[in-house]
């Protein structure tokens, strides 16, 4: 046994203050019970342990506290947010109403007179049963390649009244007529028969049911003016853009295939209003 009557005080004070190692506690407790006088001393010492008087409190804590910064909720933000929300709602409703207004009138594309819309020769009526579609007329307008004209040196006095036509254009037209003497632009098989087809001298016209279908014909057909009405879901702006991209790709394809095509114009009409003119030059 480590604890004895000669060294117990050191263990006693540790045991009294709960500082005695846990492995020594049983041994010391046994020592206490075997030594009544030391146990009595321990009881007296234990009575000297003070307990805090909880009635004593520091009553001036307010002197110690620091004021925390008040969390000021920015009220003006709420006002601006409310205004923004109302405006957004109005814009959304207005936009929706505008779109529906444009869709609901059953647009039937009517051919315009040449004076007002000279390039559109044929129009395909929009299907009436699709109320949610936007009728879009697509006109692909391609012109023949032109060489920089070289005006002949002529006596202005002699040719005062005569129109001055570039020599190369005249020659080119003659050449083309010689090369394709019997070529008359005929209606593409893709074109519905009900659609009138009016060929033009310089700008033949063809109507395509599907804009991505390019009729393989002569150069004259590529010099075409195409009018079609394509149903499109109106509520999707993305769909319109996708549609236009297809048309643009088509015109580019035409240009690539035929070297003589100098420029291609893509005209998109909503109703009778031209909303887009892409010069794919």
């Amino acid at each position, binding site marked *: 046994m480590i604890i004895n009557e000669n060294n117990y005080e050191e263990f006693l004070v540790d045991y009294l*203050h709960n*500082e005695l190692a846990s492995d020594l506690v049983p041994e010391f407790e046994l020592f206490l019970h075997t030594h009544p006088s030391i146990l009595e001393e321990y009881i007296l*010492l234990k009575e000297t342990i003070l307990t805090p*008087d909880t009635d*004593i409190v520091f009553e001036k*804590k307010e002197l110690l506290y*620091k004021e925390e910064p008040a969390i000021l909720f920015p009220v003006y933000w709420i006002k601006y947010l409310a205004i923004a929300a109302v405006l957004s709602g109005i814009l959304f409703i207005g936009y929706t109403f505008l779109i529906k207004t444009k869709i609901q009138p059953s647009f039937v594309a009517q051919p315009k007179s040449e004076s007002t819309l000279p390039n559109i020769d044929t129009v395909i009526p929009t299907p009436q049963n699709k109320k949610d579609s936007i009728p879009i007329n697509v006109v692909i307008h391609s012109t023949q390649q032109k060489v920089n004209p070289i005006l002949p040196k002529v006596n202005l006095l002699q040719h005062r009244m005569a129109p001055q036509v570039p020599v190369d254009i005249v020659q080119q037209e003659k050449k083309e007529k010689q090369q394709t003497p019997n070529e008359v632009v005929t209606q593409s098989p893709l074109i519905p028969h009900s659609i009138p087809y009016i060929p033009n001298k310089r700008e033949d016209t063809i109507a395509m049911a599907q804009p991505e279908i390019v009729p393989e014909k002569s150069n004259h057909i590529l010099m075409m003016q195409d009018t079609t009405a394509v149903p499109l879901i109106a509520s999707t702006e993305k769909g319109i853009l996708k549609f236009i991209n297809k048309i643009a790709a088509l015109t580019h394809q035409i240009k690539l295939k035929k070297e003589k095509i100098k420029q291609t114009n893509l005209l998109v009409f909503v109703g009778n209003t031209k909303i887009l003119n892409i010069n794919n030059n």
Partner: protein
Amino acid sequence: MTIHQYNQQVKMHADDLYRFVLKNIRNQQDAEDIVQQSYKILWMKKEEVDLEKIKSYLFTVGYHKLVDALRKKKKTHLVESIPEKFGGSSETKNHDVKKAVNEALEKLPDLQKQLVLLKDYEGYSYEEIGSITKLSENQVKVYLFRARLQLKTSLIGLENHI
């Protein structure tokens, strides 16, 4: 340490610190001043003090402020009136052991009294008390034992008187 954390420390430890200081200095105004000074220093050192050791830091500051105050008090030989609820000589006659111990406590040397209060009131270990008072653990242990023996003697005298 944020303001919120500081205020939490006031709420948690101000009473304990005040109780410890008041028991030693036995003057309410002095005890309040020491507590306020301790918290003021804590706020000034808020960036340096570890949150988990704030109580120990507070008692360390309070202890040294207390020691300084006691030294000044001894020099001026002021006799402070002791509030009745904090213990007085008249209460020893009530044969109340607790009050007899409190009276005996007042007779202890300042250092032993402070060690007893740190041990009994706050439950600090020898090591923590040594850290606060700048004493070794063995010194703390010896001083505490001596204080206990003196308190026990007062109790023995009380029992004999009864």
